[in-house]
């Protein structure tokens, strides 16, 4: 059975939506990081799917996915380091603990 473009696109966009929802509602910084990872990965799926369905003759989208994965890894590593720093300072990874500066 041949799957259509939408069959890939819907899950990836749902994934992106879940990421945005998680980013806004989660209170734990690690959970926020996971949500961000969901968003970044749904972009990779988008690129790969658009490439193989709409423009099968070229590889540009695939290359973008590859680079985006590497960039996402770098971002996660740095964000984790910052979360660890915050943990050392306040002994917690709850986002409500870091609301000293406001407005």
């Amino acid at each position, binding site marked *: 059975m041949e799957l259509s473009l939408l069959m890939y696109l819907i899950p990836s966009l749902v994934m992106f939506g879940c990421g945005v929802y998680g980013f806004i509602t989660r209170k734990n910084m690690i959970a926020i990081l996971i949500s*961000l990872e969901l968003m970044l990965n749904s972009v990779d799926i*988008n690129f790969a799917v*658009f490439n193989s369905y*709409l423009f099968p003759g070229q590889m*540009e989208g695939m*290359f*973008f996915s590859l*680079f985006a994965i590497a960039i996402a890894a770098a971002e996660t590593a740095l*964000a984790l380091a910052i979360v660890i720093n915050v943990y050392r300072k306040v002994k917690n990874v709850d986002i409500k603990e870091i609301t000293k*500066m406001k407005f």
Partner: protein
Amino acid sequence: MDYSQFLMMPQELGLLLVFLLVFLFDTFLPKKAQSSLSIFTCVVFALFTIANVFMAGNGTSFSGMYEQTSATYAMKLILNAGMLIVLIQATKWANSEFVAVRRGEFYELLLATLLGMYIMISARHFLLFVIGLETASLPLAALVAFDKKHYESHEAAAKYMFTAVFSSAIFMLGLSFVYALAGSLYFNDIAVNIMGGQSALLIVALVFVISGVGFKLSLVPFHLWTADVYQGAPTAVTSYLSVISKGAAAFAFLVILAQVFGSAYSAAWEWMLYAVIVLTITVGNLFAIRQRDLKRFLAFSSISQAGYIMLGVIAGSEVGLASLMFYVLVYVFSNLAAFGVIAAIENKTGKVNMDDYNGLFKTNPWLAFSMMLAMFSLAGIPPFAGFFSKFFIFVGACHTGSVAIYVLVLIALINTIISLYYYLLVVKAMFIKQDECVIPTFKVACSEKVALIITTLGIILIGLASCIYTYLAEAASNSSAMFMFIH
């Protein structure tokens, strides 16, 4: 592969060389010599900046992924000038007790972000652009967290990091839709492929792309991280963040909107940008009024300044490009003068509150004088450079000739008057409340003095030396191909 293509990017190679020299100095020289690292970096970077003035040569390399025009040369030169001032200003802080151990890392990270901004400015392919954007913003997050002893620095870094990743995810989702529409990621190919068809998907993609870059530029409604990050980060990093990274992002934003989405100018992004500009200028101004912490105050002022810079983008013409570059240049000098004074006082006394500046003129007249010039220039009072940059950017926007843009310029003008109120609050505190001096008289460090003299001279002279604007206008007029699809 043809390696001579790398010769097309002399500025990037030069910056890489500076980076390597600083890295080797930091790694291999004995402990005793380490204390001169700051001076070494400043001197090497100054030489590099001077060498930059003589670099020229237009063209593309890597099959069109990378482009050098006279406008990108000029923009990189402006960034270099700002970077040099930041480096000189940061010397005192970098040699302070708690930072000195990690001095090398500070300079290496700063140079790495600048390299990312160079790539961002010259990229003509979205993959290269995203790499440049991330190279510019990831080391900045590490720099924001640099002040390990202070809790605020960590909070600011967490906020910066999460919003930066969030915005780049949104930006890349927009790019995936652009790719689906155009089948290419080259700026020129996309522009040709999306011409004519105004599909809904294009507008969705544009919204995502504009909001993604809007985060980096801290345009309202994507500005909420700005004030917290500016307050929490070390002052040297804040000054870098507020001028260099904003200037580079503004230029790249103009390139993307004009060169890639130029055909959708009047149909889509002119109106999106219109709303964003009105919101940015107004909200930035209104929130700045209620700030007492000077770094937060300058954060909101920089938000409203970003709105003014966007007037050069909405103009969508060579005149707009020239006035945008001129505005960024003037903004670099005015804002760095303000941050230079703040850093000097913070390094000495640890005070950053506006009430602490009462009677500063009595105790430290020269600092108060530089601060006053900076505030006048940011507000746009005539003899100083800020007036000319505002004038040119309004003229550039009016060049489009549409009535709506005239209304926009009028709103911006009214906001200039509002901004005058809060800029003068600082001047009032320094000059009029003479009887309650908080900060004692102190001697400003040599490096800070040099940086303040450079910025103050810049504020006075840039507006009057008409050759600078002529040079930028000439550079902009050479890249008219960028605006081919607008109108």
